[in-house]
């Protein structure tokens, strides 16, 4: 039982980070029909913004984290929308999808050439302390990751449901034409979505890099995990992405322990195929509905 709890907590901590990245997939899809195949690289890059601030500029970690979030909002939010999405979305979804694939390669190779091809140690936000609770070793870092990730998700849900801007974003997602008629500044709402996605990616990056180590190729596995999580949970629901992320994290860990370490990567993909076959809208998704 202690082993199971250990696996569950560890899986939830990793899954919460997947969820942050998966939410980005759903947000961008809802408001701008953008499937961002560079989402994994969006999670990889902010760690390097922080590393540049620390190693090249000599700034403390806390300041580097703030810089990483701000740089992410500028580069992965504003620039991504203005330079990539805005001009290409007029050409349809497919050119934009291919462009995001190209962007993922550009970001990956850029980090490799500018910073390093090697993995880099990355500091953790939380003290390196392990607690033993009923035979289960729980590190403070794991608890911290869970608290920060869930805190971010709860704050996002509150923002979308309880604030005026959040409701305007919802309206934009559900029907941009009607929203525009009702006076909702649709373009600004779409920009806010991109900025929120950038912040979520930066949070995921800061949380996962101490575990994964910061490396230019991290986006490959993170992007895939987040994409699978978004589809499993429901691509058109933020809460679906959350459930999908957590589920993938837990299933991955349990599969490694109770099925086979050799086939652990296959199990989430089998889950994905099953969901597509039997519930194509995802666990919490709804058919032909769009809401953030």
């Amino acid at each position, binding site marked *: 039982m202690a*082993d199971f709890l*250990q*696996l569950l907590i*560890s*899986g939830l901590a*990793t899954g919460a980070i997947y969820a942050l990245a998966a939410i980005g997939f759903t947000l961008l899809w809802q408001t701008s029909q953008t499937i961002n195949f560079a989402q994994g690289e969006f999670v990889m890059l902010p760690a390097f913004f922080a590393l540049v601030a620390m190693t090249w500029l000599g700034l403390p970690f806390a300041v580097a984290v703030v810089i990483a979030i701000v740089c992410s909002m500028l580069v992965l939010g504003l620039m991504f929308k203005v330079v990539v999405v805005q001009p290409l979305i007029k050409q349809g979804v497919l050119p934009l999808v291919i462009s995001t694939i190209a962007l993922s390669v550009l970001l990956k190779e850029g980090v*490799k050439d500018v910073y*390093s*091809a*090697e*993995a*880099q*140690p990355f500091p953790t936000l939380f003290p390196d302390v*392990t607690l*033993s609770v009923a035979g289960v*070793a729980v*590190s403070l*870092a*794991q608890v911290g990751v869970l608290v920060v990730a869930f805190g971010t998700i709860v704050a996002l849900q509150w923002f979308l449901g309880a604030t005026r801007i959040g409701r305007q974003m919802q309206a934009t997602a559900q029907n941009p034409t009607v929203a525009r008629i009702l006076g909702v500044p649709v373009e600004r709402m779409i920009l806010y979505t991109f900025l929120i996605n950038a912040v979520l990616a930066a949070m995921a990056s800061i949380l996962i890099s101490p*575990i*994964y*180590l910061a*490396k*230019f*190729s991290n986006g490959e*596995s993170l992007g895939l995990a987040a994409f699978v999580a978004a589809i499993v949970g429901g691509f058109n629901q933020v809460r679906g992405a959350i459930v999908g992320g957590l589920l993938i994290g837990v299933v*991955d*860990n*349990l599969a*490694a*322990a109770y099925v086979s*370490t*050799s086939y*652990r*990567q296959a199990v989430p993909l089998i889950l994905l195929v099953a969901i597509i076959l039997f519930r194509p809208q995802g666990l919490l998704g709804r058919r032909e509905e769009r809401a953030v």
Partner: protein
Amino acid sequence: MKRATLLGLAFALGLAMPVMAQDTIKIPNIIELSGGGATVGNNWKNGSQLAAEEINAAGGILGKKIRLEFVDTASDPGKARAAVQRALDEEPIAIFGPIYSGSVSATLKLTADAETAQIMGGEAANLTAQGSKYLFRTSFGQNVSMPKIANYLRDEVKAKSVAVVYVNNDFGKGGRDAIIKELKERNIAVAADLSTEAGQADFAADVIKLKGANADAIFVYLNEEESARFLREAKKQGLNRPLIGETTLLGQKVIDLAGDAADGVKGHVGLTVDAPIPAIQEFGRKFQARYNYKPDHNGVKGYIAVYMLKAAAEKAGKLQPKAIAAALHGLTITPDKTPGILIEATWDDTGEIDRISFLGEVKDGKQVITQILPKLKK
């Protein structure tokens, strides 16, 4: 007039180019500069570059300057094979690399067919067992290192049962097969046999399984980054069994990435700049001064690869691929004649290397050598 001058200049350059080319020997390094093997490839690259500069400053090989050409395999055997084929088309005197065993396995037939020496970094036991007369190791194969580890587990750790965790690639599977065979021969029980994936980030489930196995010791045979992630998770979960490794687990990059989670790790080390040998320590200082980080064993392997080529070419007396390969068989290179070889080394007819090695452990974030093991054959 202008046209005539340009034509004359082009003609003169045309004549000069082959002369310049003949004065320089290009040696392709087909190595892992990105992907999972980036750490090993970059160490090798910097080590070999350092050696090439020293050799060129001292007059080159048989009077010719050498120029290393670095080609990235992206740690992918398919890309490595294509790169080796392209390099062989230019008829080099030797090929350096790859370092990952899977990539070496995918390329060794090409170099054998081209009758060109392949001086590589792979450690999988089966590489030199495939009959190529053109494959040469720069570090121990698992057939040499695993018996030493098994002896260490029996004699020093006093382990009656050992859990094995390995990476599911040619390097890892080769090591896993070799160590399990050696453990069984010494009546040491294998309490767990865990496969992990290359590039794996989360080792929580693996550590839980290892805790459950309750073995006297755990043999960890992963690549650099995965080793560091594993050690961090092991520390987090309070895995309190001796963690034993072979060279990589005690390497500087793993120590840098794992931080204090690497403290207490023990094992066999084929090559290290922490060895109590002045020449190898001096190499470590030169490397550190030039590249601003401490090299791991792959840096040493890249460095000695160039000196291997130099010694073999000088023994052969010509820069001819087949003659260089023939000269390497049965060759013993000693530091008194070739200081760059750092430690006396001998290559047998299969390309297997023999030299002294070390037992060590990680203390306070540093690798400490505790014992020197002699060459297998005097």
